[in-house]
C-alpha cells in the first residue's frame, strides 16, 4: 500500500454544500423543467458540467484489474491527466455499483480532490503518476475500511448523484408528500406512489428508505436503490419522531398525511 496525502478535513455540511453547487450548475445548464421530467443522468451531468467546467475526462474502456490485495479495482482517478477511469466490466455486466462509481471518481476525486492532488504532486510525485492513482476497490464500499479520502469522495458523489433538494422534489411529486414520513418501528406502512396505494412491511428505517428509493430510482439515471436510500432516509423519513419507549402513543399514518401540525402527537 502507498501513503495517501493528508487531505484537509471537511465537515459533512461543507461537502454537501460544495456538491450542491455542482447540482445548481447542472440545473442551470439543462434547465429545471428538463430535470423535473427527465431526471438526472451521469452522461448529461458529465457533458453539461463535469467536462465543460472541470475538464475531467471520463474513460470506461479499460480493464483496471486487481489492487495490491487482489481485490478488483472499480475506478481510478489520475490527477495529473485529469482522467477518471471506471472498470469496463461494470458496464458489461450492468453492475449496480456502476453509476455511483462514475460519480465517485469524476466528482468525488476529480472535482473535490483534483486541485488538492495536483498541488500535492511535488510532495507526492508517485501519487500523481499513472501507476499510482486514487483508486476505489471493492473494499472501498466497506465503511470500516474506508479512509477519510474515500469517505469525502463518497459523501460528495452521493450528493451530486442524488441531491437532497431533488430527492425532496421527487418525494413530493411522486408520493404526494409535503412532510417527512414518521418511522414508527417495524410494521406495515402505506405508500401512495403516483396516486396508487400500496402497503409495505419493513423492519428498519433504511429498509423503508430503500422501498421508496426503488420507486424513485428511474429519475436518478440508474443509481442503485441502495445508494439512493441513504439520501431518502435523510430527506423523507423522520426517525427522531419514533418514540421507542412509548409506541402506543403514536397513531398509524396510513394515508401519510399529517395527523396534526405537531408531529409529536401527545394525548
Amino acid at each position, binding site marked *: 500500500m502507498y501513503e495517501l496525502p493528508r487531505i484537509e478535513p471537511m465537515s459533512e455540511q461543507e461537502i454537501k454544500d460544495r456538491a450542491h453547487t455542482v447540482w445548481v450548475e447542472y440545473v442551470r445548464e439543462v434547465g429545471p423543467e428538463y430535470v423535473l421530467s427527465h431526471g438526472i443522468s451521469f452522461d448529461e451531468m458529465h*457533458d*453539461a458540467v463535469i467536462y465543460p467546467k472541470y475538464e475531467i475526462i471520463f474513460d470506461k474502456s479499460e480493464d483496471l484489474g486487481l489492487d495490491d490485495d487482489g481485490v478488483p479495482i472499480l475506478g481510478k482517478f489520475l490527477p495529473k491527466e485529469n482522467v477518471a477511469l471506471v472498470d469496463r466490466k461494470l458496464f458489461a455486466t450492468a453492475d449496480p455499483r456502476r453509476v455511483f462509481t462514475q460519480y465517485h471518481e469524476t466528482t468525488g476525486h476529480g472535482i473535490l480532490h483534483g486541485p488538492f492532488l495536483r498541488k500535492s504532486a511535488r510532495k507526492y510525485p508517485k501519487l500523481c503518476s499513472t501507476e499510482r492513482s486514487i483508486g476505489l476497490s471493492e473494499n472501498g464500499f466497506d465503511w470500516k475500511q474506508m479512509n477519510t479520502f474515500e469517505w469525502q469522495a463518497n459523501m460528495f458523489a452521493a450528493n451530486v448523484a442524488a441531491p437532497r433538494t431533488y430527492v425532496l422534489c421527487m418525494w413530493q411529486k411522486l408520493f404526494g408528500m409535503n412532510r417527512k414520513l414518521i418511522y414508527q418501528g417495524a410494521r406495515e406502512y402505506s405508500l401512495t406512489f403516483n396516486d396508487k396505494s400500496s402497503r409495505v412491511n419493513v423492519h428498519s428505517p433504511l429498509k423503508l428508505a430503500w422501498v421508496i428509493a426503488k420507486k424513485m430510482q428511474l429519475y436518478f439515471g440508474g443509481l442503485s436503490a441502495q445508494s439512493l436510500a441513504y439520501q431518502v432516509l435523510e430527506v423523507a423519513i423522520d426517525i427522531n419522531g419514533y418514540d421507542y419507549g412509548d409506541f402506543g402513543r403514536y397513531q398509524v399514518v396510513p394515508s401519510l398525511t399529517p395527523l396534526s401540525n405537531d408531529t409529536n402527537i401527545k394525548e
Partner: protein
Amino acid sequence: MDITFAQKIRELRNKKEWSVYQLAEAINKTPGYVSKIEARGEIPSPEMIVKLAEAFGTSAEELAEIAKAEKSAELVKNVTKKYDDAVVLYRKSRKK
C-alpha cells in the same frame, strides 16, 4: 492514426487558451456539444467541422482529414468485428 479528432480540438482550444464555454460560444453551440466532441470522441457534421476550423483560424481540410481517418478506422473495426462474430457463429453451428 497519430491524433484523434477530439485530441486535435482540445489541442487547438488549449492553444487559444479558451475554455469549453468560450469554444461553445464561438461555434454557437452548448458546452454539452463541445463535451461530446472532446470527451466522447463524437465526430461532428462536415458543416460543423468547417465552423470549428473558422473559429480556430485553421484549415478545414486538415480537420476533415483527421475526422475521415478516424471514421474509416472505426468502420474497419466494426466490419472486422462483424466478420469475426459471423465466423464464430458459423463454427458454433458446425459443431452442433
